């Protein structure tokens, strides 16, 4: 067993699960999507990205790119949230909530791809 692999897998799966937790529930109901869950998903996704830095293999490159996509989507969701609450002042209306959740849904897809790559990599491993 390799501690580095454990941590790597842990963060990738955690990013996906947190993202899923935030995403699940009716898309336009703010009470079903907690801001802390989004924050946790974003932070874990950023850490997962940093963990993927510096791998020069083809699979490493795909890993990094899926993570970057997830980060981008989650940051966009967070900015949408902040703009709605603090800048325009309209609050978490169903339309704003739907766009935040759908953005996180995109990130969820990228995270799922990440997990699939992780599984493929593990299956290919011969040692």
């Amino acid at each position, binding site marked *: 067993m390799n501690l580095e692999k454990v941590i790597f897998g842990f963060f990738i799966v955690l990013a996906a699960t947190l993202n899923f937790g935030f995403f699940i529930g009716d898309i336009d109901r703010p009470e079903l999507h907690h*801001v*802390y869950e989004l*924050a946790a998903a974003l*932070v874990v996704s*950023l*850490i997962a990205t*940093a*963990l993927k*830095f*510096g791998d*020069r293999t083809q699979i490493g490159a795909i890993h990094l790119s899926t993570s970057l996509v997830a980060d981008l989507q989650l940051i966009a969701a*967070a900015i949408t*949230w*902040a703009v709605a*609450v*603090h800048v325009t002042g309209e609050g978490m209306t169903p339309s704003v909530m739907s766009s935040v959740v759908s953005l996180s849904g995109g990130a969820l897809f990228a995270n799922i791809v990440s997990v699939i790559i992780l599984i493929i990599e593990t299956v290919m491993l011969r040692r």
Partner: protein
Amino acid sequence: MNSAFFLALRRMRVPIIVLIVIYSVSVLGLTLIPGVDADGKATAPLSFFHAFYFISYTATTIGFGEIPNAFSDAQRMWVTVSIYLTVVGWSYSVITLLALLQDKGFQNTLTTNRFSRRVRLLKEPFYLVCGCGETGNLICKTLDRTGYAFVVIEKDELRVQELDLQDFKSDTPALAADASQPGNLLLAGLKHPKCRAVLAVTNDEDANLAVAIAVRLLNPAIPVIARARSPAVAANMASFGTNHIINPFTRFAEYLALAIAAPEQFRLIEILTSLPESPMPEPHRPPSGYWILCGYGRFGHALAERLKPAGLELTIVDPDCSPDEVPHAIRGLGTEAETLLQARIGDAYGIVAGSDNDVNNLSIAVTANELNPSLFVVARQNHNVNSALFEAYGADFTMIPSHIVAQECIAILTTPLLATFLLQLRERDEAWSGALVSRLQELHEELTPAVWGIRLNISEALSVYRALMQGQKITLGEILRDGTNRSLALPAITLLIRREDEDILLPPDNFLLAPGDQLLLASSLSTRRNLELTLYNPNELDYVLTGHEITGSWIWNRLAASKANGNNTTR
């Protein structure tokens, strides 16, 4: 992406994760701790947005104060903790980044990347020079002056830095690396489509051999020119099909033998193969007869081998020479009068000071001259740094190995036709050579001419090629006119014209040119530029041939043509 970027990312992994964790913990704390309003009543904690904003300016030590409202004491406690946390996190990241930038390996990666990118982006044909010592430097300077691009690999980092300080016209990529490693050669563009030739002129015989072998195996299409001092290495190189092996010792010995046998021919070869626009060499007239040879190493052997057949009687003076090997050899350095007298210096016509020690060579030459002032002195100069001493002494003939190698490399590389010409002139007599020498000297009194080649094709001589393809009759004399004032003839001598397999030596001025002709010319570098422009630019060519000044613009040309037609019809 390049490897330096990946290396940086890999090293920055831990600091970045530390920063993310510290930020998220600090922000999370602020979103949980309740604030306080002006009346002292508890209010809701900061939102994520405000908390992130606050931590961002606090962590980067910008510090706008407590925004949007004054904080509660609980919040201040937490902020105190996060300030220290974030400062530590940032310092750690910055220190790691600085350490990475100063890392020798990282810097090497950066310079190597930059070098290979510059080589990859080279658009003009270039030469790959391996080794930039005395010889390599001379070659680089000449290539630069004559307008050829080149790439340098040199083992010594100091020499590469010195190269940066020299005022080269072109921006030369140079790498401090071992040329004997094939990877470095590939990095320097061995397989680059524009790489024309490789020169192996390092100080290390084995490295030169390794370069020659690597080029033969990795890119057999391009020629490789290698320097070899010992016959064994030269033979090894030859067995690998090295195109040209230059041994400065044998080459000089051949020159000296030729200078004794046919002085005019030797002088012609010397002028033609010297570096372009270098001082005109002194005429050498070494006498035949009895000679003394001091120093019997590789140079001495090469000399003895070639001078004896030329009819010279030789006495060898060497400290380590055994009498079994060479009969009548005299033991000694030759720096002291006694040894030289023993070698019958009074009867000698010439002496070669040919040891591998510059000071000893000078000492031999000075002592010999005192004993016999009419002696012809040949001195071997091993290092460029001693140039001042050898110039002050003024031997009749000074042999500088680095010059010989550089001259030959340049001559072979830049003018492939020159080798043909040199072969052909050996069949001519002394008077022919003498006449040509005086013509060459008329071009310029003090500087040697540049010998260069041009082919009348689309890429090198566009305008002449087009004119010839249209059936225009152009003689050699017609294009050898000054492009700024066509009443003046250009000071240039056409040495050779190659048409398919036929070589015409010293063609006359009324020689009719044909497309595809290869010309070998001797002229100054400025004359060369003048003629190259004439041969390439249609307007310049038109002026030189007819005296008409034509502008290039299409409308103007049409107007001029219709005007000429109008004149014709009215007439």
